[in-house]
């Protein structure tokens, strides 16, 4: 993730989804705990957790254990949506990066 370090000045996205207010900090991110790449990594970690939950439920269901279909569908939907959101954030970040790359000098 160090390759996209230069755009970390756009601030921290870690508050996304928690607070609807304009909480994006504008401070320069120089440490490893903030910055766009780090936020995406955190998002991916969270999605990986959701996918693991969904995987466990699907495996239990396939094994004939007492698992409710609604639980499986909720877990898979959440994993799916989480992945879509993180992927969208990554796309937007890359778009911004591309715009900067294409600035004529």
């Amino acid at each position, binding site marked *: 993730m160090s390759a996209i370090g230069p755009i970390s000045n756009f601030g921290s996205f870690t508050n996304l989804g928690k607070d609807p207010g304009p909480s994006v900090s504008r401070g320069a991110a120089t440490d490893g705990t903030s910055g766009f790449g780090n936020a995406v990594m955190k998002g991916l970690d969270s999605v990986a957790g959701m996918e693991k939950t969904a995987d466990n439920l699907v495996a239990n269901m396939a094994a004939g254990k007492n698992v*409710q279909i609604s639980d499986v569908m909720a877990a898979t939907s959440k994993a799916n*949506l989480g992945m879509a959101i993180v992927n*969208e954030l990554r796309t937007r970040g890359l778009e911004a990066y591309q715009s900067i790359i294409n600035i004529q000098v």
Partner: protein
Amino acid sequence: MSHGPFASIDIARSGLGFNKYWLDTVAHNIANVNTTTTPGQQPFRARMVVAMPINTDSTQGGGVYVGDVLDQAGDPPLVYDPTNPQADQQGYVQGAVDDLAGQLGDLILASRSYQANMTVFKESRESLQVATTLGRG
């Protein structure tokens, strides 16, 4: 977890779980509508599911859960059937404390509630899917 971006999915999931439990209970009650016992024994009593809200520290609440399962109250009907092997000395058998018409009503309620929660689930998922495309060029 009942807050955050997937709150409504979790709440709808709890509704689906509750209503599935209710449907299963109604199935059990309907299956046992003809269950007889010898007078003096415990009669079959229809099971009633008690809904309880899941309260969380968040303002919108957290859904529903099966708070309790109660037995239907009332006296069992006595039927004169001396040839029945379950009959007592006087020739009576004891029916189930179970109301088929009421259970069929509950069946419709439970299945419609399940569908309503399914609609919430679908709408919530679609809204979130649309939200990811906001502002896309």
